[in-house]
């Protein structure tokens, strides 16, 4: 093997209303995508088929009902889907349909923790009512060791101290969420 082309694409689509995706659903998909993509948890070498030919992963997320904090829920669902994904059998650079060789090689589990802020109060996992009334939100995606993505939303602001404390808390709370994911 001389060249390995590494391509991975997670396409996430959120359906919150009819019509083209809103700014919010684009942001949701991109935040979940960024968390999983930047953590490098998938061995992309295993996607190689033959020269100039690789496999790709798509994740589609359909929001059936909305009760706040779609980011964390979507990220958990996406991660669980990756963990249960099977690798297709490959022979001579071709995928053999319907035959599988083990699971997708996933090294770690990425989960996100979203915090809402209203006034000077900060709360984890905003429900729909809290989401409607909050000034700002801050999401951290974590692996078991590292922070791997972050995103602030809303017109409000966070202090430096908030960001550091919430990053710390995301790592701790992330472990609770990781425990929910089944291998």
């Amino acid at each position, binding site marked *: 093997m001389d060249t390995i082309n590494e391509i991975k694409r997670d396409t996430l689509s959120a359906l919150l209303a009819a019509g083209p995706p809103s700014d919010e659903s684009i942001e949701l998909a991109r935040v979940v995508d960024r968390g999983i993509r930047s953590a490098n948890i998938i061995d992309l070498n295993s996607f190689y088929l033959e020269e100039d030919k690789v496999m790709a992963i798509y994740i589609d997320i359909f929001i059936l009902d909305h009760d706040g904090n779609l980011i964390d829920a979507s990220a958990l669902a996406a991660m669980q889907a990756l963990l249960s994904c099977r690798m297709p059998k490959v022979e001579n650079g071709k995928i053999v349909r319907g035959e599988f060789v083990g699971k997708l090689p996933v090294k770690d589990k990425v989960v996100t923790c979203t915090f809402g802020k209203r006034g000077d109060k900060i709360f984890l996992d905003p429900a729909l009512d809290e989401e409607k009334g909050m000034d700002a939100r801050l999401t951290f995606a974590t692996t078991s060791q590292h922070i791997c993505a*972050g995103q602030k939303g809303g017109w409000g602001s966070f202090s430096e101290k908030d960001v550091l404390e919430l990053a710390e808390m995301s790592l701790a709370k992330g472990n609770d969420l990781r425990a929910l994911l089944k291998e």
Partner: protein
Amino acid sequence: MGGNAANKPKLLVNGKRVDGRNVDDIRNVKIVARVLNDADGSAYIEWGKNKILAGVYGPSECIPRHDQSLYRGIIKCRYNMAPFSGAEEHGRSGPNRRSKELSKVIREAFENVIISENFPKTQIEIYVEILQSDGGTRCAAVTAAAVALADAGIPMKDMINAVAVCKIDGKMAVDPGKEEDNFGDSDMPIAYSPRTGEILLYQMDGLLTREELAEGLKLAKDASEKIRKIQIEAIQKVYEEPKEERFLLIK
């Protein structure tokens, strides 16, 4: 991020970066305010090789009317990369998913500082066109848009700006260029409100530890104060120098 690991160049040699900067140096930033005739406020920024034009219109009547608020002015923002702005955008134009997300986060940063309660039923439009991109365009866009808003006379609580920090070869550095952006391990754009020290825009990707996060925030804050001075000078020059000569200042 996004670069091919196989041909990754060395980003840090003897503490110097690919373009010879130290880890806490920002690139050259030049800002000229009031460069457009028809916009209520405008600014042109050259940040390293980034070239960005920002125009502000408003407050004007908010159209469509269902977007109006009885209590405050609505802020609209469009971040757009010109089709010729860089290798990735070659031959493409119009909004894509990336530019829609960036428009949203830039708008939210300005919603914090613009005193929009003064202008019910109106809209304030911010247009940012990336003419040439070289990494860190969203930060340069926020910086230029803040100057354009000030030039338009829109009351703001603060003159904000943004700067990114990255992790290159295991060390934190401020203001990544294109190569550092593509091949670095982490990228974290932050907009500070220098008056309060609050964070108005925050994004991050790539693996970071708690300590690296804290170091990155500090680097960004120091750089933000340098940029604020340049922004204020740009606004002062509008009133000191005649209009025709302002564009010629950039050499």
